[in-house]
Every structure is written in C-alpha cells, then in structure tokens.
C-alpha cells in the first residue's frame, strides 16, 4: 500500500488499456456516481475524470449486501433456496439451480427426466425475462425511453408464464432437491408457443427502433471494447464473454440437466464492444426461444410422471399423489425439513442470464450447510468497470454499465 496511488499499480504492471491514459494530475475531478443515482443501480462507481475522460474508476459495491453466505450457515438446506433467489429475483431458477444440483450431488441423487425438462423450461423463461429487463435498463440509460417501456412490457409475458407454471411471478423457488415443485398446467405449452411467436415478432421491432437506430449505434460501436485476451484475464462471464469471442457457455462446456440433449447454438461475436454485447443478447434470446420450443414439444409428447426423485416421492402420502395426478402440484414432504446431507464437498455451476454462477457447497453431515460460497456473474463482471472504464468519456459510463448488464443485488449477494 505504501506510496502507491490506488488502483493504478495494476494497470502499469499488466499493460491493460487503463494504463494508456494520461498521468494523473492534481486537477482530477472525482465524481461519485451512485448508489442512489438515476444512472447506476444500487452501486457506486467512483470515477476520477480529467476533463471529460475517465482516468480511474473504482466500483464500490456492497450497498445491498445481505451476507447470504453467512445466513445460509444457520438455515436448513431447503431454506437456503428462497434465500439465494433474492440475488436475482427475476432470474430465480437459474440462480438457485446450481445450488440445488450441488446438494443433489452430495445426496447422490438426480432429478427425474421430466423434472429436468421442467427446470430447463423455467430457466429459459427466466433467462429471456432477465435479458428483457437488462434491455429496458440499457435503453433508459441511453435516453431511449421506448426501449425502456417495450421490453418491460414484453417481459410481462414471460413473468406471467412463470407465474402460471410456478405460482409466483418472481421468486419461484421452483427447483427443489430431487425435482421441481409443480408440473405444467393444462394448456401451458400452447400459451408458451404463442409467447415464442410473439417474442420473435417483437425482436424484429426492437431491431428497428433500437438495435439499428443510428443514434444508438453511434453511442455503442467501439465503446467499452474488451479484447478476447482481456476478457479471459478478467474472468468476465456470460454474454459479455461470448461477445468478446470466447465460446464458453456452461450449458455447453459443462452440460447440466438436459441441455446436452437439446439442439441450440452458442452465439459468439468477435467485436467485443458494447454493440456486440447488445447483438449477443438478442441472439441469446433467439436461442432460448429455440430451446423453449423443443421443451414444449417434449412436454406435449410425454405423459405426466412424478417430478420428484423417488427418495422423496416414496415418502409422500397417498393424498399428495392424488393431488399431483389431478392438479400437477407436488406438496413438499416433511422429509425436506429434516434433511441431512452427507459429508462432502461439491462444486456446481450454471449459466444465468448474466453469466456463470458457481456454488461451493460443503457439508459436515448436519441439517445446515457448513459453508456455501457463491460467486455470481455480476460479481465477476464488476471487474470490467475497474479495468475498462478508464480512457472512456463520462457519457460512455451508462453505455458500458448497461451493456455489461450488471445487476447489483446479484453481485452483492
């Protein structure tokens, strides 16, 4: 620490783009953007500007920190699922699924196939909803109020679908150990197909008003450029990584659930700028729609079958089974509340809308976890601000912030 100007040492050592800026003078202007500012979420970015150029940027996170890692140590295993959902409530299934899978690994069980398809179904619905949320925020950051309203309106379609499937608009708590909570209601797949058709049409509208808008293009092209090497070095994830030309997606590199049986592509863009990240997200929505179509087909072809692993399902009283056959709802058995997980460690990751989330779960055989370590996508993407923002103009900050699709509650955990 001694004699070091904060944050600048790393730049010089690693020859990162931040080091290309001018020497810091005395006449720097320090601006605190956030945490309660219309241009940032619940997060503060301290920028030091020279004229209009950002010389140093320092993400100051933690405004909505909830110590989830500690809280999970005093809760029973099942109670941590609704807790972890609070990281990204509109992406709840994606965020909690790796935790559920890690515990399943320790238990040595696997969900039945139907449950796997249902998990994928909700994951992709969540993913689209989260992308649309990000688009809305991004649009309003660039002053494009129509792009703010449209995706938020269209997101309602997917939120409603999720509500129909799970009973909750946002915090679904849908995947539980060994399966899922509910089966699809009657007529769901038809509504899903309708929503897919609608979304495809709307993506075309988005292209017309936002993606191909000359003002938006001039704001985004060449801004926030992350070269491939730097993207890997900073360990950024998700669409941001793929927009920089790295073909990495947990769904492909470490397939979970039924992703290895589904036919979809991992879109990759080479440009690595903010505009490529926008295009990347549009492509990802298209791929998610493709996955959803296949899941809908599979669900139409297969009859209703138990959606919980046998270990739990066999403890269900006959009444539960009757309710399940008639209404598709599986009430959670008492065994979940007293669940003890065998000793061991497991590591599991999943692809959320904003990138890869990873869980390190350690159990010492009790009814609460010994240690859960979460590292979420936004927490990893936050490094971008420190290393990419320097050298850009102040007005580029919302463009970069929005294009990274940073979500403070997810980063703060």
């Amino acid at each position, binding site marked *: 620490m001694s004699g070091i100007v904060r944050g600048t040492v790393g730049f010089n050592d690693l020859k990162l783009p931040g080091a290309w800026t001018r020497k810091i003078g005395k006449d720097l202007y320090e601006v605190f*953007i956030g945490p309660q500012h*219309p241009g940032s979420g619940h997060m503060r970015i301290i920028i030091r500007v020279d004229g209009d150029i950002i010389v140093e940027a320092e993400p100051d996170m933690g405004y909505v920190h909830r110590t989830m890692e500690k809280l999970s140590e005093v809760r029973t295993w099942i109670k941590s699922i609704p807790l972890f959902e609070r990281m990204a409530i509109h992406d709840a299934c994606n965020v909690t699924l790796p935790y559920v899978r890690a515990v399943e690994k320790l238990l040595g069980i696997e969900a039945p196939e139907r449950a796997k398809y249902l998990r994928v179904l909700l994951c992709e619905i969540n993913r689209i909803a989260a992308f649309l949320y990000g688009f809305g925020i991004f649009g309003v950051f660039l*002053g494009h109020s129509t792009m703010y309203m*449209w995706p938020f*309106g269209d997101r309602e379609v997917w939120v409603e679908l999720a509500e129909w499937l799970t009973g909750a608009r946002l915090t679904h708590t849908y995947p539980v150990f060994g399966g899922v909570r509910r089966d699809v209601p009657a007529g769901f797949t038809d509504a899903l197909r309708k929503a897919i058709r609608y979304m495809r049409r709307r993506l075309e509208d988005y292209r017309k008003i936002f993606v191909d808008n000359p003002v938006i293009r001039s*704001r985004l092209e060449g801004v926030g450029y992350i070269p491939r090497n730097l993207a890997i070095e900073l360990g950024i994830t998700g669409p941001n990584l793929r927009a920089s030309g790295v073909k990495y997606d947990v769904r492909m590199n470490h397939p979970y659930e039924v992703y290895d049986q589904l036919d979809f592509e991992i879109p990759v863009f080479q440009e690595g700028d903010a505009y490529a990240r926008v295009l990347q997200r549009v492509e990802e929505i298209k791929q998610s729609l493709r996955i959803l179509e296949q899941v809908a087909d599979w669900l139409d072809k297969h009859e209703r079958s138990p959606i919980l692993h046998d270990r739990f399902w066999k403890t269900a009283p006959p009444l539960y089974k009757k309710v399940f056959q008639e209404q598709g709802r599986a009430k959670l058995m008492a065994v979940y509340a007293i669940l003890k997980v065998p000793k061991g460690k497991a590591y599991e990751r999943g692809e959320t809308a904003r990138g890869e989330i990873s869980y390190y779960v350690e159990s010492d055989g009790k009814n609460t976890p010994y240690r859960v370590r979460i590292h979420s996508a936004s927490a990893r993407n936050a490094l971008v601000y420190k290393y990419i923002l320097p050298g850009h*103009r*102040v*007005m580029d900050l919302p463009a970069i912030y929005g294009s990274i699709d940073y979500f403070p509650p997810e980063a703060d955990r």
Partner: protein
Amino acid sequence: MTGWVEAIIKIIEWPPLWQLVVLGLIAPLAVVIYILWFERKTAARVQRRIGPYHVSPRIAGGLQLLADLIRYSFQEVIIPKTVDKAAFISAPLIALILSILPVVAIPFTDVPKWFPLPMDYSLILALALVTLSPLFIIVAGWASNNKFAIIGGMREAYLIVSYEIIAILSFLAATAMTGTYNLVDIVHAQTGWKWFIVLNPLAFFTAFVGVLLSTSGFPFEIAESEHEVVAGAFTEYSGLMYGINMGAAYLKRMIYSLLLTVVFLGGWYPLKPGEGFIWGYLAPSIVIFIKATILMMIFSFFRAVYGRYRLDQAIEIAWKILFPLTVIAFGLGLLEAYYGII
C-alpha cells in the same frame, strides 16, 4: 363605466404589453402545457402505454400538467446552505425572462401600428436575445456548488459554442436571400407559397437541428441527461424553481419555433392581415402560433424515437456536418438572391 372597459382594452391592445404578456408569456405557456401533454401522450402511444390519465379521464388526462404545475408551486423550495444564494435564485429567473424576451422582436402582423418595436433590425435583435439565456444556465450550475450541476453547466457551455453559430447563420440565410434584417420584409418575401422552407430547405434543416441542440431536445438532450448528471445544472433546484428551469427550456423552444415559423414557414400566410385588432393582429398571431405548435409537436416526437448522442459526438456533428451545411445554405441563399428567384 364604458370608459373603464375601453381603457382596459386599450391597455391590453398596447403592442408591447400584448406582445410580451399575452403572446410572449401566456400563449407560449399554454402551448408548452399542451406540448408537454402531447409529448407524454405520443410517447405513451408509441410505447404501448396510456400516459397521463387519472387527473381528467374524460379529456385524456389533459389537466395532468396543470396538476403538476400546482404541485410544483406548493412544493418547498429547498435552497442548500452551500450554494451562492444570490446567483442560485436569480439565474433561473433571468434565464426565464431572457428566453421570453425575443418575442418583442418577432412581428405577428405587418401593420406598423401593432409593432412593439421598430422592425428594421428585428432578426438580429431576436437572435441576439435568444442566445443570452444559456449563459445563466451555466451560472445556475456554477452557483449550485454540486459536481453534477457543474458538469451539466460545462456541457451546456460546450453546446452553446457549437450550436449558436449554426442557429444564427442558418437564420441569416434568410437575410442573404432577401437582403434585409427586417422580419416583416422577410415574411413579405414569402408571399404566394414561396416559403423559404421550399426555397432553402437546407437552411431550415440546419436551423431545426440547431434549435434541437440549443433546447436540449432529443437526440441532443445532453446537458440535462438524467443518467449521467442527474438533472444537469438544475440538480440542486426543487419545487417551483425546478419547474421554472424546465419550463424555460420549453419556452425557449417555443420562441425558436415562432422565429422558425416567421423566417421559414411563411409567417402569417396564407392569411393576410387586415383592418382592426381582430383581423390585423389577433388572427395572424393565431396562424403563427398554430404553425409553431406543429413544429413543437415534431420536436417532441423525437423523444420517443431517439436516444441521446454523446457530448463529443454532438459537438462533432455540429462542427463537422452542420457547420459546413449551414455555410452551404447561406451560399444557396446568396445564389438564389443573385439569380432573382426570390
């Protein structure tokens, strides 16, 4: 009894008063209120929402803006301890006055009896007055003693330097075409549908964009860009003071629209000012206001379509594209005058 009424009518008809208070303040304010409602309503229509509704459902929320105005007037005006009080309070008021003032130089009729000022150099006077008010926005930003306000003020300063010359030069293209600074003569030169928007569309275009730049309309809403600098120079203002600041920008855009109407859109044509107050003064002003309102509606529609440019991009557009275009437009005007098309 009748003497009183006549006296009041005389006072109202007295051109400086009529022009400043009625045409300069009340009518633009009414138009601005309508335009704000229109802007919110069109944006809502584009964005598949309803927009203002609950205040007066029968007239589609038309009274929403009045309700907002009343709310603003009753809100507490907070003056932070750290501000330079005199400048903080006076700057927005002066800016408001200065943005209305150019209306005294705009003719709403060709009957000399109704001119508030001699119209010989009215174009120059109007342009000079219209470019004064941004200075006080910078003062307001500086007096606020807030980082966002100062950044906003500086952005305003950057933009003034780039748009002012464009706006002035493209209006002066009309002078190049007619050889006069007299707005009445300029309107007369546009008789018989020879509107300058048709004869010199380039000048109209550059003036139009210059106005957009100067009144921070989309896609150039940079100085008050909410997502970087909160509210620009007006970050520290609250209540009615904030309302004045925001209203001043719209009033200024209204005055600019009036000027655009007179210079490029044929002024009071197709109407011909006749005898008496009604046909000589009131009717032509209504025609001009209708044209200006249509211009305002076009300005506000951009909000729903465009995002905002970056500061350096806006300045680049101003200097690299618009400035040469303005010079060409000026030259075009000279050529047309030389070949006697006017």
